[in-house]
Each structure stands twice: as C-alpha cells, then as structure tokens.
C-alpha cells in the first residue's frame, strides 16, 4: 500500500466496514499519535482512528471564532457547570496539537515525586521519564523559542521578570522554523509547528500504520474480560452527521480520545474499567486568567511567537506565568466596557501585551459524565476558594511584572475592581480584595485525571504504564491518566507517558 492510500477521509467511505489490526488507537492527539507511531515503528499493525478531519492549510480560517467553530468540539463553546468556565477540546487529526501553542515543559521533579507518593507509583519520577522526554524531544525538534521571533510582547515579559529578579526563560516548543506569525491557535501557515498531523502521524504512516479519519468510536468491545476492539460510525466533518457503521477488531485497544471523552466512552460501554469507581472522577483543570498591559511604546503585537516566554518562579506556589497571544477578536473579548470606552481600549492594542497565569488547582475537582443522545460530556466542576486565592496571587504577580516592565497601565478584567490600574499602588487591590470565583474571567484547556493512574487498583483506573486495572488489552493514553495536575503545560508529559505506554504494549504483543 502506498502512503497516500493509508489514510481514509470521509469522502472515501461508501459502505459499512470491518477492519482488523494488532493495535487500534482511538484519538490522534499527542497521546494517540505517539503510541501509534512508536508501535508502527516497532513493526506492529496499527490502525489509528480519529473522529475529526485532517486540516490542510487551505482549510485554516484566520478568524478566531470561525476557526474554533471548525476545529473544536461543540463549536468551541464548551463550558463546565458548577463554576462556569469555558474549556475546549479539538476535533481534528492531530487533536489539540493543531491548535495549541506547542509549549513543551517537563513536569518538575517535585510534582512527579508527589505523583509517586500520592498515587503509589514506583517508576514515574523524572529520572524514570527523562529518557521518554528525550526521545520525544529529539523526534519533534523541541527547542527554546529563538529571540529573533519573540517580538516585543514576549521580550517585555522577560524585562519584567529580570527587573524583579524572577527566573524566566524562552518557552521550549515543538516548532521548527517559527516565523513569528502568532497564529498557533488557528493552525500554523508556515508549517513550522510540529503538530501531530505533520510529525508523528506521517511517521506512523511511513512505518505502516493506517489512519481512518471521520471515524467516531462509540463503544469499546470486551469479551471474557478482554478488550477485543471498538465499534462506531463515520461522521461528516464539521456537521457531525453520522453515516456508515464500522467495527475494528484488535488485540490491544488504546483509548487516547482525551480526558473529557475517554471517560464518556467507557461509561457508554457499560461502565467499563470502573471497578475503582474513578472513571470520570477527579476532573482537574489549570484555570487560567490573563491581564492586558499597555506600554508607552508600540509592541506591534501581531508579530511574535504566540507564547514565547515563561516564568517557573512560582510553580511550587501553584502557578506558572507566561506570555500569550490569540486571534485579536478572542482576546479583545476580555476588555471591559462597551461603546467609546471599549473603542478607546481597542485603539491601544498596538501598544499592548497579554500575559497569563495558569494555576494548579488540586482542591478544585469535578466530574465527567455521559449525556443521553450525544458523545459530548456533561462537565461539573467547582473552583475551590483556596485555589481562587492562588489565582489571585498569580494576578498580583502579573501586575507586578507588567509595571516592572514599564507598562503605563493594566486591564485586569476582574469584576468589582477598577477597569484600569495605572500603578502598582492602584493594582494592590488585586492582592487585597476578597475575590470569589465568579469575579474572575477564567478559561482552561489543560484537563486531567478523569481516568487516573494509581498503583492501587481500588483507587485508580490504570496502572503507571497506562494499562487498565480491570480489563486486559485496554490502555489509556491521554491526560486522564495523570494522577493530578502536572504543575505546567501537560502536552510534553503526556507524550512522554504515551511513549512509555507504547513500549509496554509492544512488550505484551
């Protein structure tokens, strides 16, 4: 079979069908793509299933809302209940890697030590994972963002951190040849971002894997306590209209559908792999909040890496600071007011920078549940007051950084506080005001722990290699396996764990 014939798209299906493979992988994001590629390179017959379509550059839309409507589940409008917070899940070949900013940060030692201690793990310390991180880094060319494409809005963050004596660094990313277009969230037109559809998926195909796109898995099949395959329907790209049915039989089934989808799939498959009662529990996020700062000098914000600089100074305190850019219509949503006030703020955008904080919220937990008549999940989550306080500290740190970098004002976007703050003294209310979750505008795309790993089968869904405790031949390779927050952006750790999972599966075949 030539490489081109190894991929099927929606228009290629003309009837119900059955397939067989040694390993079927459900989901082509950073977890599934790594597993599929590594197993194919190990000589295994691999079938990779993806519900979304592949996107080519001519499918990219530069407008933020229209792009999200095409690349995200629920049109990009998914939100939690309880504490209402927007969250997103991509639906495309390559998963979230197509539309994220490619940040690759290794989980800190102290986080992984805590994972091992709390989840009774034995082989998940940094020394255990570093070889897997290294393999992924080499394959993807992960490297610090070059200064030449940082742009002013990233370098001003460095200036602020330097002035305050905080550690900071260029963000390492899976990018080769970034040109600084700042368009990571709508698809990289330079093809510089090594998203899974440009890296691991083509490599898997070169090694013999087959890829079925527009293939929506609806159920995992189990016989005599062993996973034997999956069934589902072909779905039309963008509309989601269901078409032909399919069945895949395989010796090993890997679920990498994402932390918010894999639990739903297990629940819809008769409450599979849930002897521990932990499927769909422990839902965690990294709630993020951003502050916009205005500088006296132009920042020309359309140029520069989407997220080029970060500070890990406060990771032990529960938050990480980083720079941020997004399609302008998306981040302008954060600006307060309307009418002439809003237009005046919009006119200042050429002088602005946006920096954000993400918070590890170990006390803020939620659930994922299947809903009737849809594969989209019901998400319930509550932002714990202690974690709100941590986010408040993070906002105060961002305010300090902005003024240390020379900002003339900041726009914090917090209800009940002034719309604009012109000095650190004015911004002190960010530290001192009693804030509630409802006062903050937060969002999160980092989601974890809904099928967590645990050394004790009574307390977790998978073991530390990703194998389900209850069901032979069933593996999970998405961020659901994280025992808790990784403290930093999760993609790199997910890929390292998936790399390890692939090795474990190969050893069992």
């Amino acid at each position, binding site marked *: 079979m030539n490489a081109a014939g190894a991929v099927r798209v*929606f228009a290629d299906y003309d009837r119900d069908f059955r397939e067989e493979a040694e390993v079927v992988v459900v989901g082509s994001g950073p977890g599934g793509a790594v597993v599929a590629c590594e197993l194919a390179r190990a000589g295994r017959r691999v079938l990779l299933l993806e519900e979304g379509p592949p996107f080519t550059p001519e499918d990219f839309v530069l407008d933020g*809302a229209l792009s999200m409507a095409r690349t995200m589940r629920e049109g990009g409008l998914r939100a939690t209940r309880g504490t209402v917070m927007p969250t997103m899940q991509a639906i495309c070949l390559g998963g979230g890697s197509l539309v994220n900013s490619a940040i690759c940060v290794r989980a800190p030692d102290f986080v992984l030590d805590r994972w091992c201690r709390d989840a009774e793990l034995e082989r998940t310390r940094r020394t255990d994972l570093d070889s897997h991180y290294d393999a992924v880094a080499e394959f993807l060319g992960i490297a610090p963002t070059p200064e030449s494409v940082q742009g002013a809005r990233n370098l001003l963050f460095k200036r602020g951190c330097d002035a305050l004596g905080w550690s900071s660094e260029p963000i390492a990313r899976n990018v080769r040849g970034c040109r600084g277009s700042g368009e990571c969230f709508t698809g990289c037109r330079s093809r510089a971002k090594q998203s899974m559809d*440009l890296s691991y998926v083509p490599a898997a195909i070169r090694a013999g894997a087959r890829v079925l796109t527009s293939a929506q898995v609806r159920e995992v099949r189990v016989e005599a306590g062993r996973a034997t395959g999956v069934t589902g329907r072909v779905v039309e790209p963008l509309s989601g209209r269901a078409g032909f049915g399919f069945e895949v039989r395989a010796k090993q089934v890997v679920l990498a559908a994402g932390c918010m989808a894999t639990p739903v799939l297990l629940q819809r498959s008769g409450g599979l792999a849930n002897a521990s009662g932990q499927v769909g529990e422990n839902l965690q996020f990294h709630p993020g909040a951003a502050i916009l700062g205005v500088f006296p000098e132009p920042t020309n914000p359309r140029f520069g890496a989407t997220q080029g600089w970060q500070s890990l100074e406060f990771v032990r305190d529960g938050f990480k600071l980083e720079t941020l850019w997004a*399609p302008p219509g998306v981040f302008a949503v954060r600006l307060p007011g309307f009418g002439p006030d809003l237009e005046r703020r919009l006119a200042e955008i050429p002088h602005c920078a946006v920096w954000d904080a993400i918070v590890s919220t170990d006390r803020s937990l939620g659930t994922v549940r299947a809903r009737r008549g849809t594969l989209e999940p019901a998400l319930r989550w509550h932002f714990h007051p202690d974690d709100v306080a941590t986010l408040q500290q993070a906002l105060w740190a961002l305010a300090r950084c902005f003024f240390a970098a020379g900002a003339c004002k900041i726009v914090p976007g917090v209800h009940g506080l002034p719309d604009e703050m012109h000095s650190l003294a004015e911004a002190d209310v960010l530290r001192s005001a009693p804030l509630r979750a409802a006062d903050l505008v937060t969002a999160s795309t980092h989601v974890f722990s809904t099928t967590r790993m645990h050394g004790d089968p009574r307390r977790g869904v998978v073991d530390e290699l990703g194998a389900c405790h209850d069901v032979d031949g069933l593996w999970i390779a998405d961020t659901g396996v994280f025992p808790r927050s990784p403290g930093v952006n999760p993609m790199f750790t997910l890929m390292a764990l998936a790399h390890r999972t692939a090795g474990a599966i190969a050893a069992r075949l």
Partner: protein
Amino acid sequence: MLFWLVLAVSAVLAWRRLLHGYAPPPRPLARLAPREAAFLAAAAAATFPSGGAVARASGDAGIVLYVDRWLGSLPAQPRRLMRLLFAVMEQATLVFPAPGRGGRRRFSALSPTQRVAALDGWARSSLAPRRLIFASLRAIVTMGYFGDPAVMRQLRLAPLAVDTPVCEADLLWPPIGRPSSAIRWRPENLSPPSSGQPLDGDGPLHPAYAEERR
C-alpha cells in the same frame, strides 16, 4: 368566558411583544431571524458606535452578517443556546427595564441612550449569571467586529502574508470534504521547510485582509 378572553388578549400581546414589527434585514440571512438580526444590530451599535476611537462603526463592520455566518458553522445545540441568549436579552427589559420613558420596550426598540444604559446594567450587575450573559453577547459582537478586515487593518492586526511550504502531510490527505483522489500534491512538489526567517511586521498582508484596489 372571561378566562378565554384573557388568554386571547395575552396571546395577542405576546405575539406583538415577541414577533411583531421587525423589519426584514437589509440583506438576506441564512440563520438569523429578523428579530435576532434587529437585536444584534442594536447591540452592535451600542457596543461599537460611530465616532469612536476606531473609525469603523458596527453597521459598516458587518457584524450581523458575521454572526449569521458563525451561527451556521456551529453544531445544533450551541446554536440553539446562542439564539436563546439573543431572545433573552432582547426581551429582558421586561424584568430589567432601561431608565426613562418606554424602558420596558424590546431592547431593539429602545433609544440609543437607553440601550447603552441597559447594557451597562448587565455588565455591572451583582448577579454573576447576568454578567455572564452580557459577556457572552459582547464576545459575539466583538468577534464580529474583528471579523472586518478594515478594523483589523486599522488596528495593525491584520495577518501578514506567509509562504506555506508543501510538506509530507500534503501528500497524504485532501482538503476537507474532498476524496483522497483529490490530493493534488506529488513528491516532486515538496518544498523546503520553513526557513525561520522572521516575518516583516510591515510586510504585505494576507490577501483576505489586504485593502481592496480601486
């Protein structure tokens, strides 16, 4: 008898309140009903009035057309929620009236000053759900405003032209909606990967955002 009379009068009043008197939109719309288009146009005009710091008024920016297109790209359930949001805000003056005479009229029927006051009430409400509804509406209108290339150009945010290399993936699948036989690239078409040459911030714009030639 009295019951039926009250019911009939109520039905007529409800019809007048909810559906009557909306002019057809100036351009045909695929998704938005005339009442939704009228509400959005009124909300957009209050959010981005003419004469502000950005020399592009909401009507010129085509916000209603943008929202119509955006709704068409959403799955059914979020689309229904968005339409519910429009309906709630259009009619909510019954519960949260705008100041002044006739403050309980539909939002789109309020005077420009009353619309601003009504929106301000939503934005600064002590009720978090009310603020959330306002933030959702303003997000939609704002994204529509930024959907206008002229706004993007004025704010120096219009995307730059970028050369897109042909890479291995382009040999593997076609654009969305096409069969695999439509893959147009061959190995001989592969081009060198991105050079990493930083874009010129003052360089040419993406064709969709470039100023129209007259």
